[in-house]
C-alpha cells in the first residue's frame, strides 16, 4: 500500500495524539494541527490528500476552515468529525464540498476506511 499522508485537525491535543498514533500504526503519515489557522498554514507548507477536520473548534470553526481549504485547494478531500449535536453543521459541510462526515466517538477502522476512500477519490481527480 502506498504511503498515505493526512492532516488531522482537532482542538483536543490528547485526541490528536491517540488518533495520530493509531493511524501511524496503519501506515498513514499524520501531521496534526490544533486550530483552523494552523491547519491552513500546514496545508500551505505541506500539501496532503486528505484532511480530517473537527467541526467544533475555538477560533475559526470547522465549517469556515473547510471553506478556506476548498478555496485554496479544491482537490483536497475533507472528512468532517462531529459530536452528535453538530450533525446539521456536518451535513451543511457536505454541501460545501466535504467528502464525508463521521460521528464522535468514531471507530478507528471506520475512519481508516473513509480516509482510504477519500484518498482514492483524490487520486482519481489528479490522474
Amino acid at each position, binding site marked *: 500500500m502506498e504511503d498515505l499522508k493526512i492532516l488531522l485537525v482537532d482542538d483536543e491535543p490528547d*485526541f490528536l495524539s491517540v488518533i495520530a498514533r493509531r493511524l501511524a500504526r496503519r501506515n498513514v503519515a499524520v501531521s496534526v494541527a490544533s486550530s483552523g489557522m494552523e491547519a491552513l498554514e500546514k496545508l500551505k507548507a505541506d500539501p496532503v490528500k486528505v484532511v480530517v477536520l473537527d467541526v467544533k473548534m475555538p477560533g475559526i470553526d470547522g465549517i469556515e476552515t473547510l471553506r478556506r481549504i476548498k478555496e485554496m485547494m479544491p482537490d483536497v478531500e475533507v472528512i468532517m468529525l462531529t459530536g452528535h*449535536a453538530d450533525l446539521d453543521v456536518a451535513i451543511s459541510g457536505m454541501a460545501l464540498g466535504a467528502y464525508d462526515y463521521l460521528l464522535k466517538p468514531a471507530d478507528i477502522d471506520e475512519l481508516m476506511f473513509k480516509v482510504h476512500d477519500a484518498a482514492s477519490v483524490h487520486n482519481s481527480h489528479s490522474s
Partner: protein
Amino acid sequence: MYISSHNSFRWLATRIFLIGIGPLFILFAVLCSRVMHNFLDDAATPALRYALALVEKKEVRTTQEVKEQLSMLLPEGRWILQDDSQHITSSNIDDVQEQQRLIDTVHKQNGDHASSIYVPMWPLPPNSSVWLHVYVPGAGSVFYGVSIESLLPGATFSFGLCLTLFFSLLFTSIFNSIIFSSFVHEKLAQERGLREKLEQKLIESNRLSAQTRVVAGIAHEINTPLAIMIQEAGWVKELLEDLQEQADLLDKDSRKSLGATFTEMNTSLNMMQKQGKRCADITHGLLRMSRKGAENKTEVDVNVMVQDVVHLLQPKALDLGIEFKWQLNAFVPAYASSGHVQQILMNVVNNAIDAVAAAEGEEHKVIISTFSTKHSVLIRITDTGVGLSLELKNRIFEPFFTTKAAGKGTGLGLSISHSLARRNNGSLSVESSPGKGSSFTLTLPVAEVDYLPAL
C-alpha cells in the same frame, strides 16, 4: 379572573342582588304608593263634594257646622278650624305646633284658599291620614283628617298582605342571589383550578426542557474525553498485539504464562471499549433528545406504525407471557417524523412490557389503541403493569430517572420520547394508578389534508 378577598362570596351575592333586583323593588314600591294615593283620593272625594255642596247652598255657614257635618259622615276624625285670617280658632289636637305643621303640609300641596284633598306621599295605613280642606268663604277653613283605616276599611289587611308578599319576594330573591353567586363562585374556582393545572403543566414542561438542555450540554462535554478513552483503549490493544507477536518468539513456558496474561488484558480492554461504546450510546441518545431541526415530517399512518412496532416486539412479549392487543381506529394520518414516532412507540411499548413483566397480577396485557379527533391523532398504550405512584408519575419524564435495576435501563427512554413528541408538536402524557397499570397517550397533530394525493 382572579378572586381577591374583596371579591368575596358574600359581596358577590350582594352585588347580584343590588344590581339585579334592587331597581325592581324600588319601582314596585313607587307604583304601589301611586295606586294607593289614587284610591284614597277617590275615596275622599264624595265627602269633599258633599261639604262643598252644603257650603254652596248656604246650608252651613260656619266652619263649626262644616266640621260637624263631616264628622257625621266620617266619624273619629281629627280636625282644625281656621278663621278667615288663617288663625287657628279651635282643634281636637292638643299640640299647637302639630296643628300648624299639619296645615302647612296641606297648604304646601294644595295652595291656601282652595278646597282640596291631601293624601300623604307614602300612604301607610296605621298612622297617616287623609286630610280634607274645606274653605268656607267669609268664615275660614276646615281641616278634617281621617285615618286611612276609616276611609278604606280593608286597607290595613291589604297592606299586611302586600307586606307579606313583599318580604317573601325579598327573601326569595336574596336566597336566589346567594345560590346564584355561589354557582358563579364555583365556576370561577373551577376556572382557576383549570388554569393552575395548565400553568403547572407549562412549568413542568419548561423544567423538563431546561433539564434536557443541561443534560445535553453535559453529554456534549463528555463526548470528547469518551472518544479519547475509547481510542486509547484501542491503542493499548494494538500495542498488545505487537507484544503478542514478540512473545511468540520466546520459549514455551514464558509464552504460556505471558499468553494467559495477554488474554486477560485483551478481555479487559474489550470490556473498556464495550463500556465506552455504551457511554457513547447514552450521550448520543441525550444529544438526539436536544437536537433541533433536521427531522423530515411527513404524513404518518400511525396504524401502520403500531403494527410495525407490535411485530418487532411480539417475540419479546410472548417470551414473557404477555398478550398484545390492538385496536386501530385512527382514520387520518398524523403529521410527524416517522422515525420519531417509531422511536417513541418502541420506548413506551418496551416500558409497558417491562412494567407488565414486573407485575404480579393475573392479567398480563398490553393494549395499543389508536384513534383520531378533529385536530389530533392519539395512540394510547395501556398496560396491566405495576403502575406508578404520584411521585413516580411526576418524575417519569425526567432524564436518568429509572426504576429498573442498574444496567437494565438508562432512564432516558421516556424522556427522549417526551422531547421527541414535543418536537413533533405533540405530547406524551401518562395516567396511572399504582397496582392497576398505566396508560401512556401520544398525541400528534393531524396532517393537513388540503390537497388530495394524485390517484
